């Protein structure tokens, strides 16, 4: 030891060693001071929050770096501590000049390495302590500061299925009145591999979402010069200012909804692993379409938002959505569960050469809550169509849906599910109004392999059930929709809201139909009924009154089938087949533009039935006795409410014409015409 001291004192390095010694002593002293004042940090936090802040170890690294290890911030209200944030390493750089000259401790750099956040606990903490947190940050010895959060990990422990993380990096620079920052966010999900499910691997989903911003502080607020949000399928640029509690915002957004996120393994730290991951990612995303093929354009954003925490008032949020102007107003309440009360309107007359061309206005009102990833509420959706339509456009005037107990769930995103406790659908055309009530409606949307989204849905329809599958193509706006729907066990008389005539049809109806909205909108399908009854059905009632056939007022039938179609040219029933013991009807009935009818029907009436009326006695005398039923083929045309009819050529008609003189034909013709004219006059 003596030798060493002698050597040191003799050598020319004495000042250096003295300096090193001082540094060593200073470091040790600072370390001792820091370890003693660990509790002070906790005490400082205690002043603002009820949660517990603890620091396991702290070091001082000369000349101006403090490292804190294993910092934990946890909730401890029920005896079981729940960790909100855990930071393995926090490095704090302070200004040595300020300390030496002004004797003031001011932080210049804050770096968090790989902090862990419990998303649910953090959200709860922010909801409960937002004001305190702002006060705490204000009291921190910050001047010009750089904040870096690297490799932060958010986990929602409440989510049991497919647990996943959100990784985020954040960098903030505050110098004088200028603020700038950038960062990125990406998602991952644990996927289990292996036959025996032995290996759980964290898979990154899609590319990171990057952001950067620049702002400068102004008197009483902040001016946001530029905020950019970037991803392979998204670009958003916003600017504006905040004054007191009011945020004014302008900007635009481009989105490509066709882009599909692909999963790839999180790269290890080795270069080879990173390269492999990069190649995998490139291969898996080679078929994607990037931002140049954006299909959603949100332009001319002009908004005014008022923060009256915990409430946010959207005083005005106007923008054009794919050239359709949209206005949103309402309130959002950031309490334990987020409450929303908004109304949105869109004027759509600018859509040209699309199937939505005749859409004039769309309105949505919604009042509800957002709890975790579920939007619940009641509301109303209205579509108004232009009165003056182009030829070939659907004859719709209005479509509205009044829904209650809606639950829109994003828990399994990208699978989206929706439930509606009750939905009243109303659709009105130039001439009619159609209503239908759905209960316990559910729908699930699955992302498809290509640009299609698959949707499965079902509901109770009165006493029956409805189930269906649909495909939505988002490559165009409005989206192309095609769907297949099946209805079972529905009492047809309950459908009087759709067509008044259904109120006179009794029996269980089952149907399958197909709906397509592009290139032309149509609904086609078939319906069938077994063992039903027609009571005072308009057509049979008319025949009954005209020819004194009372049995036609109540017709029990064994089966009734028909195909139906509704498209821009009109509505129609084809392959009508009604079979009853005494009556039969087959043929088609089409209703076109301006309620113009085009129909050919064959009516079969049994000899027994015709015997009821004395008017048919001469007719029955003329035809052969072995014929059990008579078939009348006739054609209908003209306006629905003033139909023309013609008795078409048939063996029966020829037989009759052969057996009666022309003047009788003329007399019968005149009598029928007189009856029709008398109905007209009434």
């Amino acid at each position, binding site marked *: 030891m003596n030798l060493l001291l002698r050597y040191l004192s003799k050598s020319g390095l004495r000042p250096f060693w003295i300096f090193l010694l001082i540094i060593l002593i200073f470091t040790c002293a600072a370390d001792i001071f820091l370890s003693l004042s660990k509790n002070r940090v906790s005490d400082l936090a205690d002043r603002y929050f009820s949660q517990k802040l603890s620091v396991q170890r702290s070091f001082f690294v000369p000349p101006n770096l403090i490292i804190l290890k294993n910092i934990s911030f946890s909730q401890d209200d029920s005896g079981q501590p729940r960790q909100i944030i855990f930071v393995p390493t926090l490095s704090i750089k302070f200004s040595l000049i300020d300390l030496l000259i002004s004797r003031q401790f001011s932080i210049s750099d804050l770096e968090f390495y790989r902090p862990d956040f419990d998303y649910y606990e953090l959200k709860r903490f922010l909801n409960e302590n937002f004001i305190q947190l702002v006060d705490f940050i204000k009291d921190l010895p910050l001047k010009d500061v750089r904040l870096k959060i690297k490799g932060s990990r958010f986990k929602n422990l409440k989510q049991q299925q497919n647990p996943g993380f959100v990784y985020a990096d954040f960098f903030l620079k505050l110098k004088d009145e200028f603020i700038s920052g950038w960062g990125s966010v990406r998602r991952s999900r644990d996927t289990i591999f292996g036959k025996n499910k032995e290996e759980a691997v964290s898979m990154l989903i899609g590319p990171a979402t990057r952001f950067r911003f620049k702002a400068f502080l102004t008197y009483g607020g902040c001016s946001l010069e530029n905020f950019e949000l970037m991803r392979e399928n998204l670009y958003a640029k916003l600017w504006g200012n905040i004054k007191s509690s009011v945020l004014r915002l302008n900007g635009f957004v481009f989105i490509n909804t066709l882009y599909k996120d692909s999963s790839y393994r999180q790269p290890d730290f080795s270069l080879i692993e990173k390269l492999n991951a990069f190649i995998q990612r490139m291969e898996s995303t080679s078929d994607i379409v990037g931002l140049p093929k954006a299909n959603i354009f949100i332009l001319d954003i002009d908004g005014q938002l008022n923060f009256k925490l915990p409430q946010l008032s959207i005083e005005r949020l106007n923008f054009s959505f794919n050239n359709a102007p949209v206005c949103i107003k309402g309130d959002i309440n950031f309490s334990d569960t987020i409450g929303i009360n908004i109304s949105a309107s869109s004027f759509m007359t600018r859509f040209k050469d699309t199937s939505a061309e005749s859409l004039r206005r769309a309105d949505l009102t919604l009042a509800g809550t957002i709890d975790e990833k579920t939007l619940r509420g009641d509301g109303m959706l209205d579509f108004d169509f232009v009165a003056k339509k182009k030829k070939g456009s659907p004859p719709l005037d209005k479509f509205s849906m009044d829904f209650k107990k809606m639950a829109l769930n994003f828990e399994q995103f990208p699978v989206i599910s929706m439930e509606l406790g009750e939905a009243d659908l109303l659709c009105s055309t130039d001439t009619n109004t159609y209503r239908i009530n759905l209960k316990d409606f559910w729908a699930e949307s699955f992302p498809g392999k290509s640009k299609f989204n698959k949707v499965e849905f079902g509901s109770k329809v009165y006493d029956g059930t409805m189930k269906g599958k649909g495909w939505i193509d988002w490559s165009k706006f409005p989206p192309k929709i095609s769907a297949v729907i099946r209805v079972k066990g529905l009492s047809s008389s309950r459908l009087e809201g759709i067509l008044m005539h259904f109120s006179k049809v009794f029996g269980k109806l089952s149907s399958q139909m197909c709906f397509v909205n592009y290139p032309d909108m149509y609904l086609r399908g078939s319906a069938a009924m077994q063992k039903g009854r027609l009571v005072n059905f308009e057509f049979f009632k008319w025949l009954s009154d005209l020819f004194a056939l009372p049995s036609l007022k109540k017709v029990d039938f064994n089966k009734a089938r028909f195909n139906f179609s509704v498209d821009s040219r009109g509505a129609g029933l084809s392959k009508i087949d009604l079979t009853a013991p005494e009556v039969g009807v087959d043929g088609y009935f089409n209703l076109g*533009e*301006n309620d*113009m009818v*085009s129909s050919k029907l064959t009516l079969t009436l049994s000899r027994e039935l015709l015997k009821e009326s004395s008017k048919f006695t001469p007719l029955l005398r003329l035809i052969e006795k072995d014929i059990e039923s008579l078939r009348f083929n006739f*054609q209908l*045309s*003209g*306006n629905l409410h*003033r*139909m*023309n*009819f*013609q*008795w078409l050529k048939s063996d029966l*008609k020829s037989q009759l*014409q052969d057996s009666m003189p022309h003047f009788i*034909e*003329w007399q*019968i*013709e005149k009598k*029928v*015409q007189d009856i*029709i*004219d008398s109905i*007209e006059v009434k």
Partner: protein
Amino acid sequence: MKTRIFTVVLMCILVLFETGFCQDCGTDYKMAVQAAKNKEMDLSYLYLDSFLTGCPGSRLRDRVLFAAGEYNFETNNFRQAATNFVELIDNYPDFKGKLFALVYLYKIAESAGQHELQEKLKTEIVTFKRVSLLFRNSQKYVYKSPLLKRHKVEYYIDRVEFYLDGESFAQIPF
């Protein structure tokens, strides 16, 4: 006495004026028909025009309006023809030749490219008469105008056919 003489003279003037007026209207109409018989359509129109100007309340006005419209249509004066037919349809809904006035308006709308109006007129024409065809294939109606043109319509189950002096004038399918 003076008052009585004054009243009688005034009544005579009024009666004479009215009689003269009516005689003019009747004459105008007769002369128009006569001119049409002689195939002098322009002359016929002069009488019709004189009638329309001078006889606002005449019971023959509906026929004259139709004939004037018919003449204007033939001379391609569609605007005036449309005015005549619209006045006819508005003021004389039970006029015997109303259906033919509608078809003239239909043709005018067609030539003017007014498709929306044409569609409305088509609906009017198609629903004008409700027909039942038991043993016949069509129902026929005929109207002879003051210009002595024979207008015929045939209602089939899926179309209406119009003929003017035996020649096809319009066919409206539905």
